[in-house]
């Protein structure tokens, strides 16, 4: 072999060795490739409507994520400003002040939407869902700032229940552009479903600024866009009604599915061994006592899911699940097996389509794995 050939051989050999080294580096890089690194989950927590709003946005654009957070918070506050019965300047307070004057009042599109849905579900649930329990709710004090719930005087409760004609007297005119409220109608308090509506609105706002993947969680009411970090669905747990850091199972939530839960463990107080929670039975004026501990509904809007969850809670496991089944929504009702909500013996009843999504585990799974 002549000199040139020998040098060429050596050059090739060095190249080969460097390639091996490069190959080692590439292998290392491949091991490090734990996923699409350009998309990051941004999480924003804020306070809205008396509870925590968590917005998770999955995007590679940090500015977009921050914009999303700001818009979400702003929209939530806007909704709160409309539906907060404890804010004298809110639209709902205004409606409550002038109710009974029998005049026709024009309302905002948001109010129209919520009222319309509330009345619709009230009819479907045959009065179990009642949006005009404002005075009763105030009597019980669950929403006072600071919260001072107490057992009101029996007579006062009875008097209120008797006098209220429910939302019979609310009439939507011109597809809700205006409203007429007849005298004798109770004070409007759509507190629960306003949260659901807020979630719907925030999801819409995020979709509007072209966010592809997000999760909006307002105090347990959840709506999603796109996919989660597994590339498929968002993993949502259902709170175990009695064990704080446990959940009953995982719902694979996808876009268009909204989840809401009503539970007796969120706002309540115990007196003499009895639990008094914030979900009132319109016929008695007292917290429902049919043994329901929590009700979870998955529906095509959070507003509806919220209202139906409350209805199913009040109706109880048997009637509640039948009701949800008849509407074709997914539902789960957890109740006290022996009728005593404090004994710890739980059972559940669910619609068949819910069971296809999730099989509840009453022992509970830890929310944060060790």
């Amino acid at each position, binding site marked *: 072999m002549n000199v040139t050939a020998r040098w060429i051989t050596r050059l090739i050999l*060095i190249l080969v*060795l*460097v390639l091996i*080294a*490069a190959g*080692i*580096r590439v292998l*290392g*890089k491949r091991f*490090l490739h*734990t*996923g699409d*690194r350009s998309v*990051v*989950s*941004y*999480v*924003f*927590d804020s306070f809205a409507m008396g509870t925590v709003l*968590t917005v*998770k946005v999955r995007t590679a654009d*940090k500015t977009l994520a921050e914009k999303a957070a700001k818009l979400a918070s702003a929209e939530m506050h806007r909704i709160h400003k409309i539906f907060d019965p404890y804010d004298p300047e809110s639209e709902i307070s205004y409606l409550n002040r002038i109710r009974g004057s029998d005049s026709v009042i024009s309302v905002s599109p948001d109010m129209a939407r919520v009222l319309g849905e509330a009345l619709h579900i009230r009819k479907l649930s045959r009065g179990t869902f009642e949006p005009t329990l404002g005075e009763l709710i105030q009597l019980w004090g669950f929403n006072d700032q600071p919260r001072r719930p107490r057992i009101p005087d029996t007579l006062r409760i009875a008097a209120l229940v008797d006098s209220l004609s429910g939302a019979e007297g609310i009439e939507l005119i011109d597809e809700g552009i205006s409203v007429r409220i007849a005298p004798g109608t109770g004070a409007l308090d759509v507190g629960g479903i306003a949260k659901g509506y807020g979630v719907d609105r925030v999801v819409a706002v995020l979709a509007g600024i072209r966010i592809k993947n997000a*999760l909006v*969680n307002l*105090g*347990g*009411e*959840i709506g999603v866009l796109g996919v*989660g*970090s*597994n590339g498929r669905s*968002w*993993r*949502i*747990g*259902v*709170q175990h009604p009695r064990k704080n850091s446990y*959940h009953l199972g*995982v*719902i694979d939530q996808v876009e268009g599915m909204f*989840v*809401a*839960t009503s*539970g007796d*463990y*969120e706002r309540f107080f115990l007196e003499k061994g009895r639990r008094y929670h914030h979900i009132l039975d319109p016929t008695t004026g007292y917290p429902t006592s049919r043994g329901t501990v929590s009700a*979870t509904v998955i529906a095509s809007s959070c507003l509806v899911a919220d209202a139906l969850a409350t209805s199913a809670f009040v109706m109880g496991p048997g009637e509640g699940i039948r009701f949800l089944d008849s509407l074709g929504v997914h539902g789960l009702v957890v109740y006290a097996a022996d009728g005593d909500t404090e004994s710890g013996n739980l059972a559940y009843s669910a619609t068949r389509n819910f069971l296809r999504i999730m099989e509840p585990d009453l022992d509970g799974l830890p*929310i*944060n*794995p060790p």
Partner: protein
Amino acid sequence: MPKLFTFADLLLLLAVGGSSFAFYGFRFWQDRFNQTGPTQVVIQAGKRIVAQLDLSQDTTLSVKGALGDVTVVVSGGRVRFVNAHCPLKICEKTGEINHKGEIIVCAPNQVLAKIVDSTSEDSGTLDGVSR
């Protein structure tokens, strides 16, 4: 007899060694731009994930390593190692980390702390709870 250290040797060492460190540096630099809100730190001993802590909450955790214990301290939104039972204490000298992608490693003990965003890659975690 061949030489002790040739030019080719130097090239080889620089190429492999240099690139692996450039790679390390690049990764951290890249992750610095992907900042998130609330962040967490994942602490591993060997293969097992020992804990996933929120950076916003001050905590102290003692982790059992191959040679001894390593104490992980979360304070003021940062993570650092103290009282590590290892000879060189490189991990302690790493100081504090708080950006996503940064890690502190106690190699002899195989204890690792890395900053991740709240939605971790662990398939067991939930994105939210309906209550």
